[in-house]
């Protein structure tokens, strides 16, 4: 026995003596061993270095670049990579040390973030606590050490390394289970694509860019092994990326346009065991994923001896139409490339196989050729022919002059619709027609921005075109028949409508550009869209980064763009009592913010792991103007990848629970308490979105919550915003907020008017409402309470663009419809060039308000009747419409209804709220409205008229 123990002890000592890397523990200054030692690239004059980014060092170019002084940089003659500093993390990370920028030299960064994690939960994410730059003896590396977040016994260490000549970086991550329980881990890079931006590609059967849909609870079902993962965007063509595992045959993971995980296979890691993941993350110029896939195949050649050939080709005639080529091995996409103006392409593929080379034009396969099987190093050529596209010259004018406008294409007949409906490389939205990638510059999907005669290539067919320039312009339309190879000029004449009240500015307080992680729209296109919508004021509110657009279009005199930010909760944490799932606090807008281009978040602040009140104080300390506005965005809406988008919904707020007057430790109290971390009350914001998004689906939920707050005496100004991320997801400026303010624009006055609620929200109709008494005193809606004379009247004028049909005017008193006026004027010509007066009237206040001497509030609405809704989860907020159209709203209308597992009252599956579909007749007034307001229906509302009956301040409805 003693001998046995002695032998064991000796073995353990020897084992300890031979320790390498950071597997024994990360507390010391351990150095993770170098990864991917089988890989070697050579070049003539390669250089490499690792350094900490200084205040004067250039930041990698690209709209997604996040680098700031203090970040850690790896750079060689080919690429530059940025790992964020420990104290200013981004996106999903609880701490820095993640790859946030990666670009080829001279190219642009397109990466949001690559996050190192061992699973999906917050405690599976790397939380590095020390960082070390190694720049000695020819080694250029960054070592990061720490724990998995919120754990004491799960060690993690990562080494990022760069060598001369290499088209990417090498990475090794070690995770050690020093705990008492086994763990189910993958060690992976979670690539946060964000959506509407990059699309991941894997060379698997029936895959490529196509990946199964899944929710957070279904991830295990969509795990796939693949030789590599690549990704690219199609709009900006900034960079393309690929990941190849160095210490194993394949990567394992899941993929979506929101996030991909690429790493080791999931396995049980018992206490004392560890997992290691070595990989090469390659970056290449982007023409689709092919350039990065080429690097991936070279890496696999070096690692596994797999050989590749080259498929080279031409597409004739050259064209500016959206062209792409996919290399198919049976049903397995092997590579894909976007065809540029020169019509050539080149991409690698494994040897020994023949490939179908498929040319897509406008998203449809138009030619397929076979590339013969080639030997290693061999180049096989193919020639592809693109059919002739039609050319349409859009000659859009406003009041006879060439100004910015937007044109929507729609198939004019079923045959055209069938022929042209398509996705770009099988990913993102289906468009009919697909004139360009959905998330990029114009043309995008079926939409074209114009300024003067604008040429656009379209697939042959019959189209209905509609031109718009926002709510203050008329609508123009034309039906055209486009033949391949032919050119047709389409005049579309718009006129400015006499719609906007004097002393108003048209504003959109929630707009995203390419700096947002979920947007890829270029700045110039973004500004062009602002102008085409007829907006006067825009709050640039990108996710987690302060944005200032350059005045490249010289729009200074026509458009005011306020720098702002949308703080976006991404790091889940447990702050809601009795809630099993970790949560985030949703999204909040802040404007105007100070823009500091060389700072993290460009002047903003890290906004995670805090309650709203703390966030408000934090943003005030980080550049929110003293007269700045804080806005609650989309308060009740579905979460995205487990991240709540609206604060009240995140905490499970119910109207029945009311607004607690003290912090009793309940989830309900989170609505109004001052957070323990300090700061302001969680209710200390200025405005709330009542309309968000062009489809406006959650209108009734937001409206109900706003009404509830007014009833409760919590008065916040209401806004209407597009939340547009590009040209396709929403029409910028639809809806919008009309601000009654002093002209010319004065920022301080403007923000004060916004905070005071001197605004209406609309996607077309304009409501002028006021209280007037016999003395002539007139009071317009705002959040400032008034005590009207007993003989006061509510005077209302509703005007609308002729293309925005208003069916009724509603007078809302204390959240309930007090009067519905349906004898309104309907225009006869939706294409008319004068605004329509829909209704004008005066109603005695005494007819609307009970004579109870109590406080009340009034709001006026105009538009379509609201779809019937129900509140199936009993939180006091409408959540479901009659989606199965059986005349009853119940759990069977819920998207996730399971007839085998029906719910119980208030615990039903619920949602969504759907808008009524537009009429089938494309020339129906509502169909015309829908054509330029996709998914929406006409709606406008005023901010409240607060009646302070007893003169002691407005205390809420009937108080």
């Amino acid at each position: 026995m003693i001998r046995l123990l002695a032998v064991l002890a000796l073995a353990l000592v020897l084992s300890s003596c031979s320790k390498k890397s950071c597997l024994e523990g990360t507390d010391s200054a351990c150095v993770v061993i170098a990864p991917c030692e089988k890989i070697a690239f050579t070049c003539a004059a390669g250089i490499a270095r690792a350094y900490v980014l200084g205040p004067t060092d250039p930041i990698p170019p690209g709209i997604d670049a996040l680098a700031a002084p203090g970040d850690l940089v790896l750079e060689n003659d080919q690429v530059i990579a940025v790992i964020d500093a420990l104290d200013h993390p981004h996106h999903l990370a609880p701490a820095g040390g993640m790859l946030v920028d990666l670009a080829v030299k001279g190219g642009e960064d397109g990466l949001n973030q690559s996050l190192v994690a061992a699973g999906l939960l917050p405690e599976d994410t790397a939380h590095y606590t020390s960082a070390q730059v190694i720049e000695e003896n020819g080694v250029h590396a960054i070592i990061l050490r720490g724990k998995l977040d919120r754990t004491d016994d799960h060690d993690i260490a990562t080494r990022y390394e760069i060598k001369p000549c290499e088209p990417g970086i090498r990475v090794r991550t070690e995770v050690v289970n020093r705990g008492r329980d086994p763990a189910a881990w993958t060690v992976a890079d979670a690539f946060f694509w964000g959506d509407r931006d990059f699309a991941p590609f894997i060379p698997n059967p029936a895959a490529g860019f196509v990946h199964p849909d899944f929710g957070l609870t279904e991830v295990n079902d969509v795990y796939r092994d693949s030789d590599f993962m690549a990704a690219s965007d199609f709009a900006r063509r900034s960079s393309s990326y690929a990941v190849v595992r160095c210490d194993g045959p394949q990567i394992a993971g899941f993929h979506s346009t929101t996030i991909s995980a690429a790493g080791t296979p999931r396995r049980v890691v018992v206490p004392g065991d560890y997992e290691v993941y070595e990989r090469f993350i390659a970056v290449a110029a982007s023409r689709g994923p092919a350039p990065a896939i080429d690097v991936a195949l070279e890496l696999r050649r070096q690692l596994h001896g797999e050989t590749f050939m080259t498929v080279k080709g031409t597409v004739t005639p050259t064209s500016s139409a959206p062209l792409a080529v996919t290399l198919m091995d049976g049903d397995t996409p092997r590579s894909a490339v976007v065809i540029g103006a020169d019509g050539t392409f080149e991409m690698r593929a494994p040897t020994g196989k023949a490939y179908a080379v498929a040319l897509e034009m406008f998203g449809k396969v138009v030619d397929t050729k076979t590339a013969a099987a080639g030997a290693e190093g061999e180049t096989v050529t193919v020639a592809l022919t693109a059919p002739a596209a039609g050319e349409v010259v859009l000659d859009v004018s406003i009041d006879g002059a060439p100004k910015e406008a937007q044109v929507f294409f729609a198939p004019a007949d079923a045959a055209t619709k069938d022929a042209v409906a398509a996705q770009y490389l099988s990913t993102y939205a289906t468009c009919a027609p697909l004139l360009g990638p959905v998330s990029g510059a114009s043309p995008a999907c079926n939409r074209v921005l114009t300024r003067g005669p604008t040429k656009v290539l379209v697939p042959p067919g019959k189209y209905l075109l509609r031109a718009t320039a926002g709510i203050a312009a008329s609508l123009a339309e034309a039906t055209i028949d486009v033949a391949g190879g032919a050119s047709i000029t389409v005049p579309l004449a718009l006129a400015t409508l006499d719609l906007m009240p004097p002393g108003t500015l048209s504003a959109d307080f929630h707009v995203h550009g390419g700096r947002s992680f979920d947007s890829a729209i270029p700045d110039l296109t973004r500004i062009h869209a602002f102008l085409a919508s007829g907006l006067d004021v825009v709050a640039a509110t990108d996710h987690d980064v302060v944005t200032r657009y350059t005045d490249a279009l010289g729009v200074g005199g026509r458009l005011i763009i306020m720098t702002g930010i949308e703080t976006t909760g991404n790091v889940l944490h447990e702050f809601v009592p009795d809630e099993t799932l970790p949560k985030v606090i949703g999204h909040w807008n802040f404007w105007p913010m100070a823009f500091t281009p060389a700072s993290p978040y460009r002047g903003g602040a890290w906004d995670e792991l805090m309650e709203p009140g703390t966030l408000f104080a934090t943003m005030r300390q980080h550049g929110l103007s003293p007269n700045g506005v804080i806005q609650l965005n989309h308060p009740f809406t579905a979460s995205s990848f487990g991240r709540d988008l609206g604060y009240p919904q995140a905490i499970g707020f119910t109207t029945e629970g009311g607004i607690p007057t003290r912090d009793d430790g309940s989830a309900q109290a989170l609505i109004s308490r001052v957070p323990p971390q300090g700061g302001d009350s969680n209710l200390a914001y200025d405005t709330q979105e009542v309309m968000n998004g062009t489809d406006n689906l959650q209108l009734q939920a937001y409206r109900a919550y706003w009404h509830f707050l007014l009833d409760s005496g919590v008065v916040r100004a209401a806004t209407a915003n597009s939340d547009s991320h590009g040209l396709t997801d929403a029409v910028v400026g639809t809806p919008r907020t009309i601000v009654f303010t002093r002209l010319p624009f004065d920022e301080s006055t403007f923000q004060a008017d916004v905070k005071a609620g001197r605004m209406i929200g609309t996607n077309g109709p304009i409501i002028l409402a006021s209280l007037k008494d016999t003395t002539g005193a007139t009071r317009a809606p705002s959040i400032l309470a008034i005590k009207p004379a007993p003989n006061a009247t509510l005077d209302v004028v509703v005007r609308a663009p002729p293309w925005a049909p208003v069916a009724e005017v509603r007078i809302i008193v204390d959240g309930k419809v007090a009067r519905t006026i349906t004898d309104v004027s309907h225009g006869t010509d939706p294409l008319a060039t004068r605004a329509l007066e829909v209704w004008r009237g005066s109603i005695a206040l005494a007819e609307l308000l009970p004579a109870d001497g109590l406080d009340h509030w009034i709001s006026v609405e105009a538009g379509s009747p609201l779809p019937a809704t129900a509140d199936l989860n009993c939180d006091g907020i409408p959540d479901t419409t009659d989606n199965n159209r059986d005349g009853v709203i119940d759990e069977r209308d819920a998207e996730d209804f399971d007839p085998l597992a029906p719910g119980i009252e208030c615990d039903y599956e619920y949602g969504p709220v759907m808008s009524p579909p537009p009429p089938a007749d494309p020339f129906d007034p509502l169909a015309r409205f829908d054509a330029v307001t996709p998914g929406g229906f006409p709606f406008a509302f005023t901010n409240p008229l607060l009646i302070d009956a007893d003169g002691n301040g407005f205390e809420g409805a009937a108080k």
Partner: protein
Amino acid sequence: VIALVALVALIATATPSASLADIGPVSIAFQDGGLGAARSAVPRSEVGFTGLGFLLADFDNFYGDLKARALLSGRWAMGELELSADVEVLRAELVISSLSAGRVGLGTTAIGATYRINGTSGIKGAADWDLAVTSRIALPTDFGAREHGAPFGIDYGALISWRPRDDVEVHGHLLGLASAQISDGPTFGRIGFTLGGGASWSPLSWLTAGADLGAQLAYDDALDRLALAIALRFRVSDAVAIDLSASKPLAGEDRTLAVGALGVRVGF
């Protein structure tokens, strides 16, 4: 399968043996190789086959661990000395978290020895109490359970039992345990001890009930667990007994909800 066939053959050919004990502590092994588990101070000869199920469900932290183990064991009494070997012929484990993963393979093998210091051989009546020293070594045969590392473990200590009546036994144990591994990763050296005690009662000639309270301390945490274990033992014949047992941690850092075991022992 071979083990089961062998066990059935043994049962068929077994002869009544006085060494088949209806006494001794409820022995459910939380640690690999049964390190630190209570065991009898009385030497005996038997072979057994036991299936164990472990359930850990921590809903608040989205964590679950389901383990099934099949244990083939044998012990041979040679006078006051008992030698033992326990081979975990199957370990299946499913860890459910944000991601799920499972494994199936061999588990740990343990060899051990117990030496009764006082008394004479035989089960009952020879002495009112027995005192023994014991030790067990766990060997890294859990191939496939881990990618890296070869863990070894040992326990050592004293066992005591006292029989105030023929149908009642009171027993206790105090064991030190230590483990470490040969690995490029952490040596993962741990030292702790277990102690516990309990009683068994045989109200009928074919039935014995037992209950034990045991604690493991200082191994992973200050208090790893304080666990209650209960068992029912059915003497099928003089040679064969069936054991049904369960254990539940009552306190400590061990998040295991419960362990259940069903085994058959054949004396010889």
